[in-house]
C-alpha cells in the first residue's frame, strides 16, 4: 500500500508542477507587461521600467514562477490588479461558499439517485422513465436550468429569492432559502449521471448468485435491494464522484454566475472579465491542484478497498 501511494505521488506531484508552470507561463505571457497594466495607459515608459525592475517582471519566466510558488506556499498570492486587495483575502471567504454549494449538491445527488433507484416500488412505477429523466438532467445546461428555476419559483410564484447569498450568520432559514435553487441547479447533472451509473451497476449485481440466494431464503424485495444489492452497486457511484470533479467545477462557475453567489467561480469569471491576472492565476492553480489531489485521494481510497488496483 505504501508503495502504491508513493508511486501515485511520484506521478501526481511532477504533474502539478508542470501544469501550474504551464498555466503561469501562459497567463503571464499573455498579459505581456503587468506593469503597464498596473499603471494604466498614460504611464511614462520610465515608470513602467522601474516597476518591472522592482517586481522582477523582466526575469525569466522560470524565476518568476519559482518566486510565485514560494509566495503561494506562504499564503501570499499577490495583489489583485483591479481591487488592489491581497488575492488570498479574496479567495478566503469565497472558497467555503463554493464548497458548501458543491457538497450539498453531491450529497443530495448520491442519496437521491441511490435511494430512488433502490426502492423497489419506485423502480417499478417510474423505472422506464428514469433513463429519460436522467438524460435530460445530464444534458440541460446549468444556465438554462437556473434561469428556468428563477423564473418559475422566484419571478412567477414568488416563493424563493431570485439571486444572492446570505451567510449562516444572518439567519439559517434565509441562508437555506437562498441555497435551494442553486443547489438544485448543480444537483441535476449529478443526479442524472449517478442514476445512469447506479442503474447499470444495479442490473449487473442483481443477476449475481448471492442476490438470488438472499431472495431464495425469503428476504423481502426491499431488504434484498437495500442490504444486498446497494452496498456492492454503490461503489462505482463513489468512484464517479472523483471522476466528474472537473465537470463539477465548470457547473459551479456557471451556477454561481447565474445566482450571483460570491464563490470562487464567480470570482474567477469576474477576474477573467477584467483581465485580473493574479486572481486568474491563483484560482486556476487552486482548482487544478485541488482536482488532482482529490483524484489522488480517490485513487488511494479505492486501492484501500480493492487490493487488485494496487498492482
Amino acid at each position, binding site marked *: 500500500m505504501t508503495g502504491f501511494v508513493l508511486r501515485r505521488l511520484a*506521478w501526481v506531484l511532477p*504533474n502539478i508542477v508542470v*501544469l501550474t508552470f504551464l*498555466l503561469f507561463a*501562459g*497567463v503571464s505571457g*499573455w498579459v505581456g507587461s503587468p506593469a503597464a497594466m498596473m499603471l494604466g495607459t498614460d504611464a511614462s515608459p520610465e515608470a513602467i521600467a522601474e516597476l518591472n525592475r522592482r517586481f522582477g517582471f523582466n526575469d525569466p519566466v522560470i524565476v518568476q514562477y519559482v518566486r510565485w510558488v514560494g509566495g503561494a506556499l506562504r499564503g501570499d498570492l499577490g495583489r489583485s490588479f483591479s481591487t488592489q486587495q491581497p488575492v488570498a483575502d479574496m479567495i478566503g471567504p469565497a472558497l467555503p461558499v463554493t464548497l458548501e454549494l458543491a457538497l450539498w449538491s453531491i450529497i443530495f445527488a448520491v442519496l437521491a439517485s441511490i435511494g430512488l433507484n433502490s426502492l423497489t416500488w419506485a423502480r417499478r412505477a417510474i423505472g*422506464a422513465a428514469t*433513463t*429519460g429523466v436522467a*438524460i*435530460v438532467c*445530464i*444534458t*440541460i*445546461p*446549468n*444556465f*438554462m436550468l437556473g*434561469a*428556468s428555476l*428563477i*423564473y418559475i419559483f422566484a*419571478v412567477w410564484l414568488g416563493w424563493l429569492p*431570485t439571486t444572492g447569498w446570505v451567510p449562516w450568520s444572518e439567519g439559517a432559514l434565509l441562508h437555506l432559502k437562498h441555497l435551494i435553487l442553486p443547489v438544485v441547479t448543480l444537483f441535476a447533472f449529478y443526479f442524472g449521471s449517478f442514476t445512469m451509473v447506479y442503474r447499470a451497476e444495479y442490473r449487473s449485481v442483481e443477476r449475481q448468485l448471492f442476490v438470488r440466494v438472499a431472495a431464495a431464503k425469503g428476504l423481502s424485495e426491499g431488504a434484498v435491494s437495500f442490504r444486498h444489492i446497494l452496498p456492492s452497486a454503490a461503489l462505482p457511484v463513489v468512484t464517479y464522484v472523483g*471522476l466528474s*470533479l*472537473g*465537470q463539477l*467545477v*465548470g457547473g459551479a*462557475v*456557471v451556477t454561481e*454566475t*447565474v445566482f450571483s453567489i460570491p464563490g470562487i467561480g464567480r470570482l*474567477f*469569471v469576474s477576474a*477573467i*472579465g477584467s*483581465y485580473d491576472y493574479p486572481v*486568474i492565476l491563483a484560482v*486556476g492553480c487552486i*482548482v*487544478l491542484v485541488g*482536482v*488532482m489531489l482529490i*483524484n489522488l485521494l480517490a485513487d488511494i481510497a479505492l486501492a484501500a478497498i480493492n487490493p487488485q488496483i494496487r498492482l
Partner: protein
Amino acid sequence: MTARRFRLSIGFTLVGMIALAGLLAPWLAPFDPNASGWNVLSGASERHWFGTDDLGRDVYSRVLHGAQVSLVVGPTAALVAALIGVPVGLLAGYARGRLNTFMVQVIDVFIALPGLVLALIITVMVGATMRNLVLVLGFVMWPEFARLVRGQVMSVRESLFVEAARAIGCRPARVLARHVWPNIMRTVAAQLAIAVSSAIFTAASLGFLGLGLPPPVADWGGMVQSGFDYLSINPLLSLAPGGAVALTVLGFYLVGRSVE
C-alpha cells in the same frame, strides 16, 4: 419499439429540426436578426413570436440564426477533438510496456482537468473568434476520445484475427488501419455525436459567461445572458435561446448514446 429505438428517433428528430432551422434561417426568420428597432423588450406577440430584446431585435429570428453558429461550432470542434484523440488512443491502446503506461497516465491527467475552466482561460488569452473557439473546444475534449479508443483497442487487440494479422507479418500501422479501426469505428462515431453535444454545451456556457462570439452574432449563450436581467419582463429572451441549446444538446446526446 424498444426504449433505445425510441430515444434514437427522438434524437434524430431534434437534430433534424435544429439543422433545418439553421439551414433555412434566412427564409424562416421573419426579421433581420441584427436589425434593431424602437420596439424594445416587447412581449411575445403575433408579430414577434418570442418578443424583442433590449435593442428591439426579433428574438425568434435570432434564435433561428443562432442554430447556424451551433451547427458550425459543434461538429467542427468534435472533429478536431477526434483528430487529436483517436490517434493518441490508438497508440495508447496498441503500445505495450512503458509507452502504454505513460500514455494512459497522460490521458488520465487531461481527463481530470476541468474543461470549462480550461476553455475559459485559453479563450480569454487567444480571443473569442469562431476559429479559436473550435480549436479550444477540440483541445478540451480530445481526452474523452483517447480514453474511449484506447479501451476499445485494448479489447480488439487480443482477438485472434489481430494475432493472425501480426503473425503473417503485418506492420502495426496496417493492423491498426485494416483490422482494429473497422471494429471501433462505430463507437467513435457514437462518441462523435456525444462530443458535438458537449461542444455545443460548452460553447453556450462560454457565451453565457461573456466569452462567446462577439456581437452582433446571434450566439445562444450570449443571448441567454443578455436576456437574464429581463426575466420578469419577458422570460423568453433567456428561455427561448436557452431552450434551443438544451434541445440541441439533448438531440445529439440521444443520438450518440443510442448508436453506441
